[in-house]
């Protein structure tokens, strides 16, 4: 029982991170029709910015977190402006390859800048866990979960309630019609990519201090984000949120009770299962066949 509870705690924390990654990717994917291969690099960028700010510049941990996220937003905007703006209307293969090229360049630049050695970030949380009637939860994990929920809620509000969000939803449904109605498509694309990148950077900045920060950490994160998007359906924030937590639970329970070596395979096996049983995805209303 104790063990099961511990798995649940881990799953909630990881689920929050996966949901952040998945929401960022699914927004970019749904609105811009871009498979963003730099997503994992934004994730590790957030983690490295956390390392640079906290460990090298001695910025307060709680101030460093929004700063790292803001830097992620800026980097995302820069990528959109320099690479993707020129590729409007290019076919999906071209865009994808340009993003893969950017991913290779960014990852190696990162390895060059920070060396291959894993770094750790000091957290201000007390070492003694929070004890609730025989059950203990680490403060850091609670914090990650809480911030993730706040960010998910914030993104949902932004897309659902604001003027920019309405423009984003209109572009998602029909970009040509949105353009005719006076929506500034370039601005929507820039905001979408910057927002998605910022969420990925926030995920990295949250999880980096709990584990370690290393140059390859983005690859697996990107694969997880892809899995969440498949599970949740195209452009759906709610789907990505549920998909993120679902993936985390399956991984955590699979690793705990089946085989820890296949932990990272669980999500992909789930995708394959979903495709066999229900190719339209678990939560998507729109057809994705044909």
């Amino acid at each position: 029982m104790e063990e099961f509870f511990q798995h649940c705690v881990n799953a909630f924390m990881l689920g929050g991170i996966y949901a952040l990654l998945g929401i960022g990717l699914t927004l970019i994917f749904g609105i811009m029709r871009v498979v963003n291969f730099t997503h994992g690099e934004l994730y590790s960028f957030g983690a490295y910015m956390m390392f640079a700010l906290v460990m090298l510049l001695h910025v307060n941990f709680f101030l460093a977190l929004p700063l790292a996220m803001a830097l992620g937003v800026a980097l995302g905007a820069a990528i959109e402006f320099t690479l993707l703006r020129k590729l409007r209307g290019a076919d999906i293969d071209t865009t994808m390859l340009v993003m893969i090229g950017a991913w290779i360049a960014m990852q190696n630049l990162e390895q060059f800048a920070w060396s291959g050695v894993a770094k750790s970030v000091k957290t201000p949380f007390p070492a003694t866990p929070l004890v609730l009637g025989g059950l203990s939860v680490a403060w850091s994990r609670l914090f990650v979960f809480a911030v993730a929920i706040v960010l998910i809620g914030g993104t949902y509000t932004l897309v659902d309630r604001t003027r920019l969000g309405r423009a984003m939803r209109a572009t998602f449904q029909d970009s040509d019609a949105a353009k005719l109605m006076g929506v500034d498509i370039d601005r929507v694309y820039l905001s979408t990519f910057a927002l998605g990148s910022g969420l990925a950077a926030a995920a990295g900045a949250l999880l980096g201090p709990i584990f370690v920060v290393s140059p390859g950490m983005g690859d697996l994160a990107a694969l997880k984000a892809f899995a969440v998007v498949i599970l949740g359906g195209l452009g759906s924030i709610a789907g990505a949120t549920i998909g993120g937590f679902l993936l985390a639970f399956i991984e955590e329970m699979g690793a705990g009770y089946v085989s820890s070596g296949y932990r990272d395979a669980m999500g992909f096996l789930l995708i394959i299962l979903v495709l066999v049983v229900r190719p339209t995805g678990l939560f998507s209303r729109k057809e994705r066949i044909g």
Partner: protein
Amino acid sequence: MRRAATAALLAFFISIPLWVANLYVLHVLIVTGIFTIAAMSLNLLLGYTGQLSLGHVAFFGIGAYVSSLASLGFSVHLAPDWLVTLGPQPVWLAMLWAIAISGFCGWAIGRISFKVRGAYFVIVTISFAEVVRLVALNWDELTNGPMALNNIPPLTVSIPGLIEFSFIGKVANYYLVLAAAIVAYVVIARLVHSQAGRAMIALKENEPLAMSVGIEVTRYLVLSAVVSAAIAGMAGALYAQYIQIVDPNIFLFIYTVTMVIMVVVGGKGTLAGPIVGGLIFGLLPEGLRSLQIQPELQWVAYGVMMILIVSIVPRGIVPALAHVWNDRVRAKAGPAEASEAGARQAAQ
């Protein structure tokens, strides 16, 4: 004209070991050739049916593992009290097994992943490759996990009493890979010029229309996946018996990226494209290495060049050159022939 050019190119490739004495250069050419074969197989899927598979390395790796395991022999528990043992097989037989099993995996994976299209298909294929990599990493008893399969025997051809020849050394392997590349080229060329090939191109151009004229879309997609996977498996088997060691890193995403970039830069949907792209991106890392900068920066340059080339010639080098060539023909010829050349180009 076309025949003469093909013959001259072939003669050039055959003559290379006669005037290239540097063994390292030959090694680079062999590995480039193996990846070019893999790129040719990917082109069948990406260029002719229009499906971007980013999991192609799975078939390459499966081919490498199957041929290595069959030639080394193995014993594995499929259940606690069910031990399956296979003694070492001749390498040529092991390679045939590799081709057959890769093709079968192409069928199985194709059946599942062709249920979706576009970006979903891309992500599903990445997932498959990742699952296969994790299996290779974790199924220690069969694959030796990260400890790798070592001492893989080289291909040996023997006719009892007549000849016995092992493909050891660079020159022998160079010719082996060249021969395999020619076989792969001929198989793919035959397929795309057949009725099945025309069906594939039709469904790439307009799937609902192809379906409406009675083309069984999934059947042809799966057919191309099977052939493509089998050829990729052959390339993997060649790689294993040449390098003589296989570890789970063979499934790394970067190898898929290498294959895709070879096809796209050369020109997808053209037979010569993967060869042109294969030579460029097979030799590019070596060219970057000669710049004497840190390996990370070499890869940064690789990524930047990828972005530049794809942005400048999104359709690939071979179609771009064909375009320039046609323009020149048009400029020389009279207006009547020019429109004919234009129509031919449009038809392509």
